[in-house]
């Protein structure tokens, strides 16, 4: 008997889009509002989880052809490297810098190196959560 998932799938497509947008927003606004790398990453990965639940691994993989293990490794490495960069530049390990720049379109914007660190965190979270879920699921 073939499952009739039309409603679910249609709604999910919209919902996933909302979640993804929201996740990115959380990630970016984390410095001044609730959110940040962890939460952003978690929300993004929960969007992916929804996709996996509603669709299936192979379908999703066609859309998102990523090796999540490597994503996780890359993220974690990025986090460590962002700290190392400061050390190479002669600051204490993990020193972060921030400043205000007047950018053409965005106006006065605050840019911080924490964002790179946070990106690493987010990537690790996404990569890890998906790796775990996929590893278990593929073992069916």
């Amino acid at each position, binding site marked *: 008997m073939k499952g009739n998932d039309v*409603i*679910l799938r249609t*709604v999910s497509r*919209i*919902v996933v889009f*909302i979640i993804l947008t*929201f996740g990115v927003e959380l990630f970016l606004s984390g410095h001044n509002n609730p959110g940040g790398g962890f939460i952003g990453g978690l929300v993004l990965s929960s969007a992916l989880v929804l996709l996996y639940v509603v669709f299936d691994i192979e379908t999703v993989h066609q859309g998102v052809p990523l090796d999540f293990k490597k994503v996780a490794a890359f993220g974690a490495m990025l986090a460590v490297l962002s700290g190392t960069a400061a050390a190479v530049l002669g600051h204490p390990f993990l020193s972060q810098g921030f400043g205000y720049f007047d950018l053409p379109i965005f106006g006065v914007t605050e840019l911080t190196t924490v964002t790179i660190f946070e990106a690493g965190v987010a990537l690790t979270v996404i990569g890890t959560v998906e790796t775990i879920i996929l590893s278990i699921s593929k073992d069916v």
Partner: protein
Amino acid sequence: MNADTIVEYTAAILMVTGGLMSLVSAIGLIRLPDVYTRSHAATKSSTLAVLLTLLGGFLYFWALERFISVRLLLGILFVFLTAPVAGHVIIRAAHRSGVKLADISKKDELAEAKERLMEEQNLERLNREKKNDSGV
């Protein structure tokens, strides 16, 4: 009593209404006989309760700081969008996993529909087989 206070009161009353709705659905959750009927209580009235409350919250913040919370609106939209789907999916799962209807139910239309579908499919298959036979 200025406009803001009125809005605040409206918001609070919306919330209390939401709370009452949700209590009603909770009573439904206890009292109704089977999962299918309970799901009505849980999904429909509960969704309404939440919507009322969120609306109340939205109004309240608007009255308080003239703040239009996009997230709250998004939340309302989201609940509106997902609650019926969730209800649908879970009930379908219930039916497919063979949860019994309450004894007082008169008719299981979905089951009948499924049976009909099965019969039609069988019929079709038989026809096809017949055609194949005749073709040979």
